[in-house]
């Protein structure tokens, strides 16, 4: 079996609390040892030249298998949302999705919890799990019927699958494209109050308490939502939550002038909630940072605001924007790697996102200070719909290893 030793790297071990110098030893597609290890004589030596060596990012909740963008962003695996043209609600579609990126990118599909994501009948979660689904999800919508939600949680729990939920009360947010507030009023946009999120979370947490199921709220974006999740974690419920960088660095004013690249789901929140998002990352409430990558071309975005599709191309900017949190002293780079890699792996139940022996040899070399400018016109992604166009950022993935092989 091929042996590779990565030397001269600064290791960002999610399990650690600071960068350490050391060696990563790889055999085949697995990590076998990390730290102060002797390099075997038959191992090929790779010099990381002082770059940060970290587990490849695992992006929990993306909408497209957009390999060039993921590779640009140092993402080696992604959990694909069931919201596809044909919702991922049957075995064949799941099987197809798992094969889409191989060998140099792995897709872990999230199976639709209900047929057609309609929130009425349960989909074949067990069979889809056997076909490769690593979680089940409600998609970008809310299961309005609490009875259905209760049974979905209970059934998924029996299979050992986490339910990935969208936290927006559908009755409030049905036709809304913005958060209630000054900007929505000025622009005359259909809007829903930010409490739509906490309402959805509150109900789902009741059902989690009832069933003992594990739930992951893919994007939580409000203070009220985080307050509920903090309390639920303290109580010991199996709850986790994620966020994407847009909610950390933009507020609802970003949609001024009807900028459809800033039309997201859930919609951008007010400044007070944005500050609460940063606080929730810093205090450990947030478990996952995801790009929520959703490349959309002009046919979906060059439309009147309310008619445009929600979503942003986020894979390329995920790492650089998240590194701001480290530079600003909100968290250590190790903790960041926990949010970007270790925790998503744990939620999906895959052996990755870690330097532990036996973990997948998915690694990236990061130059954390490399400056570059986000340019929506020159992106690797299938479309350049980023609300961060022209923003100077720092941090690039320089090399990617997937399953023991460098790309």
């Amino acid at each position, binding site marked *: 079996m091929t042996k590779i030793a990565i030397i001269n790297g600064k290791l960002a071990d999610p399990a650690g609390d600071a960068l350490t110098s050391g060696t990563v030893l790889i055999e085949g597609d697995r990590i076998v040892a990390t730290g102060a290890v002797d390099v075997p004589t038959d191992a090929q030596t790779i010099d990381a030249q002082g770059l940060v060596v970290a587990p490849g990012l695992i992006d929990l909740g993306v909408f497209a298998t957009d390999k060039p963008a993921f590779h640009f962003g140092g993402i080696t695996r992604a959990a694909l949302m069931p919201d596809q043209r044909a919702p991922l609600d049957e075995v064949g579609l799941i099987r197809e999705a798992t094969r889409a990126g191989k060998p140099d990118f792995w897709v872990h599909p999230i199976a639709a919890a209900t047929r057609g994501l309609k929130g009425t009948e349960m989909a074949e979660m067990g069979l889809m799990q056997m076909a490769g689904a690593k979680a089940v999800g409600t998609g970008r919508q809310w299961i309005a019927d609490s009875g259905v939600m209760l049974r979905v949680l209970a059934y998924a729990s029996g299979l050992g699958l986490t339910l990935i939920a969208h936290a927006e009360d559908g009755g409030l947010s049905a036709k809304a494209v913005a958060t209630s507030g*000054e900007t929505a*009023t000025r622009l005359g946009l259909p809007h829903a109050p930010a409490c739509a999120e906490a309402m959805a979370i509150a109900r789902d947490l009741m059902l989690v308490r009832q069933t003992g199921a594990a739930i992951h709220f893919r994007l939580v974006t409000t203070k009220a939502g985080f307050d509920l999740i903090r309390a639920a974690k303290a109580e010991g419920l199996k709850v986790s939550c994620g966020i994407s960088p847009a909610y950390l660095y933009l507020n609802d004013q970003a949609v001024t002038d009807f900028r459809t690249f800033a039309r997201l789901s859930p919609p951008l929140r007010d400044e007070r909630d944005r500050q609460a998002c940063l606080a929730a990352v810093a205090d450990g409430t947030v478990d996952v940072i995801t790009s929520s990558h959703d490349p959309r071309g002009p046919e979906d975005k060059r*439309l009147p605001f309310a008619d445009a599709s929600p979503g942003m191309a986020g894979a390329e900017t995920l790492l650089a924007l998240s590194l701001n949190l480290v530079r600003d002293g909100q968290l250590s780079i190790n903790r960041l790697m926990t949010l970007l890699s270790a925790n998503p792996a744990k939620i999906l139940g895959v052996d990755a996102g870690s330097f532990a022996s036996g973990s997948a040899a998915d690694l990236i070399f990061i130059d954390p200070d490399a400056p570059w400018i986000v340019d929506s016109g020159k992106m690797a992604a299938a479309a350049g719909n980023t609300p961060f166009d022209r923003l100077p950022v720092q941090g690039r993935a320089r090399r990617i290893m997937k399953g023991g092989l460098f790309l």
Partner: protein
Amino acid sequence: MPDIFIPDATPELTGRALFPHRHLLSIADLKPWEIRFLLDEAEHWAATNKGQARKHDGRLAGMTQINAFFENSTRTLLSFEIAGKRLGADVVNMAAATSSLKKGETLIDTAMTLNAMAADVIVIRHASSGAVRLIADKVDCPVLNAGDGWHQHPTQALLDALTIRRRKGSFEGLVVAICGDVLHSRVARSNMLCLAALGAQVRAVAPPTLLPPEVEMLGATPYTRMDEGLEGADVVMMLRLQNERMDGAFIPSAREYHALYGLTPERLAIAKPDALVMHPGPMNRGVEITSTVADHPDRSAITEQVAMGVAVRMACLDVLTRSARAVEGWA
């Protein structure tokens, strides 16, 4: 009310500096003196429209005006058509029902098509907020917003301001109550910004379900009880309640709305004795307004609003095409 507007100082300006905008998309883009400039220009047309039998003025002769209405309209379309024709422009109407949008063409493609036909001014109405700005960014000629979704209807606000100014003289200290479905109303949004910028005290009077959040930021004080909102008002501006909002979604019924928010003679008596009654039309008689009030010979300014509409639109068409017509000082 927060102090968000520019102080009421009129700089000494001439030519293009009086109105340095390529398009007219939103009242929010205009300074108070720019609004007053358009009103002064419209005043001139109001006089000629009324005074003489032959109203034709040839200044836009040879220019093409396209009225692209992606949402049904009778009066606004007619008003823009008459305004264009009185100025001598070749006016072409494109109605949604006959447009290729029905065949799936995107808004941007339609905009490119209109642009390729070398229009000199395009008037657009669309059901989606922001749609007119989207088109304006893609064409080479001035664009006039004739209403986009819930967002803006600037010429309506200008014609309302002109009507008020002609009846009341000035806006200083004037109490204007804008009543009804403020949430879904582009007329209300444009009027709140316009009247507040001109110095009026604006009130937004609506059932709580039809009042947009943070309406104060647009310069209006919110009221949810009609009687309180009308107290001491100099102008009562009623808004149309769309049929689809009447059936329990936002208010329980049309008759309850009439009982609580309809402008009846009794309710009008709460306002000042000489309070002016306005409505952008078309009216739901017996719902938001009773016929007695709507047809009141002294108090109702509703038909005058229609007349001012033509004058304001003539002024806007004239001013926006001055650069293309190489009018001295506007090149």
